[in-house]
């Protein structure tokens, strides 16, 4: 410690900003073994479940009724595993934020960068990007593997089939957005258990409650549920639900609303 300082200490030009915070968030994300495990699990289980579902269909193809064969959707079947990823990506989205609160790292983070909205923006950008890359990896690999397993005479599609590319790319985007929804919830709630409960509640319990409503009302509300949006993204069949892109736009809206609400609270609350 022979360094000297004094009132004349030279500071770097300008001010800390988004570039440093992005690097910082990237280091945080990749330096936790739990993150890597969760991402690995998302990829392996996602592809594995998709492969199982398609292989199972192929194995029973000869005994399936004509009706089942005609209504079989090779694209969505091969993307089933992507929806398993909702749980792992969602939990990771929660942990990225609540892990900081639980450990107290948030105070080191915010002391290093007191402009809190900027910190959240960097976190959302880094996590959202990683989630999207992982999700697209899962959905494309699931799709290709699934279609390869659906050998003749079973029906299969290619990316140039109508709606197939939309379904594959769209389900990746859906998964990335689910991660941001979870991050937004966690920024508001701050506790791991509470945030995961809220996330699973919205994803799994809320649709059941809505379904219990009178039919006329349920039909109006159901299409706003994330699980319905997810289903409409991969489905090639028309339904009452929103179209794939409208649905994804709505998901984007959910993520933005939750992140903005979380950001406002982050700025206002004591850390």
């Amino acid at each position, binding site marked *: *410690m022979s360094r000297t*300082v004094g*009132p004349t200490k030279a500071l770097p030009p300008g001010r*800390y900003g988004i570039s440093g915070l992005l690097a910082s968030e990237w280091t945080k994300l990749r*330096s936790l073994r739990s993150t890597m495990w969760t991402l690995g699990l998302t990829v392996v289980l996602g592809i594995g479940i998709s492969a199982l579902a398609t292989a199972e269909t192929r194995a029973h193809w000869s005994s399936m009724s004509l009706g089942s064969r005609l209504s079989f959707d090779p694209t969505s079947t091969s993307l089933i595993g992507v929806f398993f990823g909702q749980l792992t990506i969602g939990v990771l989205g929660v942990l990225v934020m609540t892990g900081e609160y639980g450990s107290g790292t948030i105070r*080191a983070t915010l002391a290093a960068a007191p402009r809190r909205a900027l910190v959240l923006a960097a976190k959302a950008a880094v996590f959202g990007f990683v989630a999207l890359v992982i999700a697209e990896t899962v959905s494309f690999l699931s799709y290709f593997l699934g279609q390869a397993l659906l050998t003749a005479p079973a029906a299969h599609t290619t990316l140039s089939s109508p709606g197939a590319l939309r379904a594959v790319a769209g389900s990746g985007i859906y998964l990335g957005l689910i991660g941001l929804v979870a991050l937004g919830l966690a920024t508001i709630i701050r506790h791991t258990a509470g945030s995961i409960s809220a996330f699973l509640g919205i994803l799994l319990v809320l649709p059941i409650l809505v379904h219990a409503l009178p039919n006329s009302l349920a039909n109006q509300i159901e299409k706003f549920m994330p699980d319905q949006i997810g289903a409409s993204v991969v489905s090639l069949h028309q339904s009452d639900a929103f179209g794939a892109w409208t649905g994804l736009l709505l998901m984007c809206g959910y993520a933005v609303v939750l992140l903005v609400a979380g950001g406002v609270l982050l700025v206002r609350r004591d*850390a």
Partner: protein
Amino acid sequence: MIEAKGLTKHYGSKLAVNQLSFSVRPGVVTGFLGPNGAGKSTTMRMIVGLDAPDAGDVTVNGRHYHDLPWPLHEVGALLEAKAIHPGRSARAHLQMLAESNHIGLKRVDEVLEVVGLSAVARQRAGKFSLGMSQRLGIAATLLGNPEVMLFDEPVNGLDPDGIRWVRNLLRGLAREGRTIFVSSHLMSEMALTADEVVIIGRGCLIAQIPIDQLLAQSSQRYVRVRSPELAALKTALELAGATTVLEEDGSLSVRGPDEIAIGELAASIPVVLHELAPQSASLEEAFMELTEDSIEYHGGSGTAPVQSPEGAK
């Protein structure tokens, strides 16, 4: 330089910090003393902008913390030792902080070296002892080579070697011209580390004084005397206006005259002295005296009501 003016903070209906004003100047170690729950940590959190004051204002080098262009280059703060994700390595923890303020990896390795954690830099912090976590927290404060440094209870959990190391580090940092603000409930530790102390009780400022003055003005200052002719000396001292107490171990505690006056008096009788030892009151005692009325949690007094804030000096 840290300047607090009228800082006030409530948590719910509880007043944690009340109209607190003080200033911490560069070049010396300023201790921040107070009983547990006095508002020390709250004050430190307000200095670095983690908690917003309900009233009043605090600035670092004339600026609000939020407006600092490069916070880690200007202020280093150790607020709690265990504020590290248990799954992250020491090096990754420092790296992510460094990157946010454009500090290079070379500096990360440097500060790990300074605090003696190089060998365990890649181990997960969850396995660290409290002492190692403290060292990691201190490493983080050094990252930006800042001019202003805050330490909340930095010697907690350290062994005697570690305590001496922190003491020397803090004194060295102050000698380099930095502003060092360090809280502790170990009053005796502050006596060895701090040049000046800010004392609070129940969120209110009790005193901001140089540590020497705190010790000197304490009524507990006395001289311990041993002599084979203690009775004669005792009488002479009392005639000269001193207060004396014969202790159980056979020594005489003398309040009033200092050791020079007592020695000269003994020589003039003459009386042989076996010991003539000025006792500064421990800071602990001086501190207890100052904060007597403002202890938040009285122990052992059963149902005795906690004093109202108005009762605090």
